[in-house]
């Protein structure tokens, strides 16, 4: 862990975050008032579909599209009030100080532009440098995400690379401006299991080397628990529990226990899997 890690001010502090969507049938509350903070560590946000975990990531970067409404008592990143920041300020924050990697590189990479040029463009958005300098930095990043032949991949188009490589390219693109915080929204869910872990290893190394904070959003509880330092468990827009990753097996909240128990295991006995019983009280409030 780098020595940027232990300052007592958190990198990101969120208090009572709410995301609401007015629809014809009434207001849909995707996130119902959650609070958490993050230092220079790996924080996992786990939840099933509809839990609000993706919305949380987007709300931090003000990427919730209209008609969604985002409110919070506090949303501070490194001393900057994210709620009061102007759109111009947010544009300087996005990419340069907080970056986001999403699930499928097929949908995040421009299909008609060479991959290397996209990375270079991401760099030049935040740094005024000559194209040759940007290309050099892009090649360095491709090497940093352990691509064996950066020159060749630089010239490739997105459809020519496999899923795992596409995701490494996304990571290169998102980390080239050297942000302080990376939000990764299901970055490996579309990948095979072994490729998933290889990509996570790269992420792990980069995040540790640079002393970054990482928010890892996923539906895979085991993966998050083995990868992150702390885990936030969300259900129906509330946080059910926050705990240290290594203590997950001792989790107290019935939802967390239910999620852990309903997973099939290789050395299970093959009997009926315990079914998660949803307590309606969970919809009302979390911690």
């Amino acid at each position: 862990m780098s020595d940027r890690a232990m300052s007592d001010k958190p990198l990101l502090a969120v208090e009572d975050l709410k995301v609401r969507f007015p629809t014809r049938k009434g207001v849909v509350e995707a996130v119902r008032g959650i609070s958490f903070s993050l230092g220079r560590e790996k924080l996992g946000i786990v939840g099933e579909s509809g839990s609000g975990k993706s919305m949380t990531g987007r709300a931090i970067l003000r990427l919730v599209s209209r008609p969604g409404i985002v409110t919070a008592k506090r949303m501070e990143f490194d001393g900057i009030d994210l709620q009061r920041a102007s759109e111009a300020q947010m544009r300087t924050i996005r990419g340069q100080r907080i970056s986001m990697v999403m699930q499928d590189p097929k949908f995040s990479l421009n299909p008609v532009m060479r991959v290397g040029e996209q990375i270079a463009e991401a760099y030049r958005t935040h740094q005024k440098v000559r194209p040759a300098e940007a290309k050099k930095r892009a090649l360095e990043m491709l090497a940093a995400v352990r691509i064996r032949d950066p020159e060749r991949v630089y010239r490739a188009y997105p459809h020519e690379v496999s899923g795992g490589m596409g995701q490494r390219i996304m990571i290169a693109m998102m980390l080239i401006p050297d942000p302080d915080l990376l939000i990764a929204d299901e970055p490996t869910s579309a990948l095979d299991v072994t490729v998933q872990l290889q990509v996570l290893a790269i992420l792990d190394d980069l995040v540790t080397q640079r002393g970054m904070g990482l928010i890892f959003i996923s539906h895979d509880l085991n993966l998050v628990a083995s990868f992150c330092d702390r885990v936030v468990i969300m259900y129906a827009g509330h946080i059910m529990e926050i705990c240290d990753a290594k203590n997950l097996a001792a989790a107290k909240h019935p939802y967390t226990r239910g999620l852990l128990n309903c997973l099939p295991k290789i050395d299970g006995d093959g009997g009926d899997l315990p079914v998660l019983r949803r307590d309606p009280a969970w919809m009302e409030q979390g911690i």
Partner: protein
Amino acid sequence: MSAHPGKAMIEVEKLNVIFGQSEDRVHAVRDVSFQVPEGATFGLVGESGSGKSTVLRALSGLNPEWTGQMTVAGQTLGPKRDKAFYKLAQMVFQDPYGSLHPRHTVDRILMEPLAIHRLDDPENRIERVLGEVGLGPDFRFRYPHQLSGGQRQRVAIARALILEPRILLLDEPTSALDVSVQAEVLNLLQRLKKERGLTYILVSHDLSVVAHMCDDLAVMNHGAVVEELAVAQLKRHEPKHPYTRQLMVASLGYDRAAVDRFEDFGVESGAPGRGDETTLPPAVESEHNRGP
């Protein structure tokens, strides 16, 4: 080893499936052979591009271009299937959002196979099968977009069951579902198997799901079976092939040290034709291609 007496319900012998021609040939399935006794659950495990789904599609008749020999319930299969086969074997697909017709109600979806096969008493059959998969009459006239993922998958299972087959081909039936819903669907599949004495072939990338549901399994990589073993052996950590071991390690979660020891397992045998590698020139790092 599981004890299922009697002849094999499903026998596959040296199955080969090749897509495309000349330069773009992809040898998706290479010399795959296995047997499934009646009443057993057989697992096909592999990552994407391993050819596991292609085996199922060839077996079901969706892909008519294959070579080798396949026998189901004593009948040798040709490239096409007849109606009798469809009453014997049915398939459940991976994507609950794509496997139901968006403009048909659940009732219509279930009525279709009954109409095609001219079975009597459709009303009762539909109600009964809906009950068996745990959906009440409330769901009968809903459209797919009014159902959750788990409910859609139950409808897909009901649709597969309504012709009263003896074999179900399950193509990653829970991969697209939330974990809690997956548990319910897996329990449902187990219950149905016991009640109706079905034979399953389960395709999945998830080793724990296969270990939970199956009696025996075959591990596939790049189109070929690298190892075949009983689930009991898997549970005792007895897999021999390094690829299987690697899959087991990977399914336990993230372990930085273990990741460093991961290998890239390329095409196994010296079989003719290129494997399904990426189209990049060899100098670029090739990984598992996301094949069919």
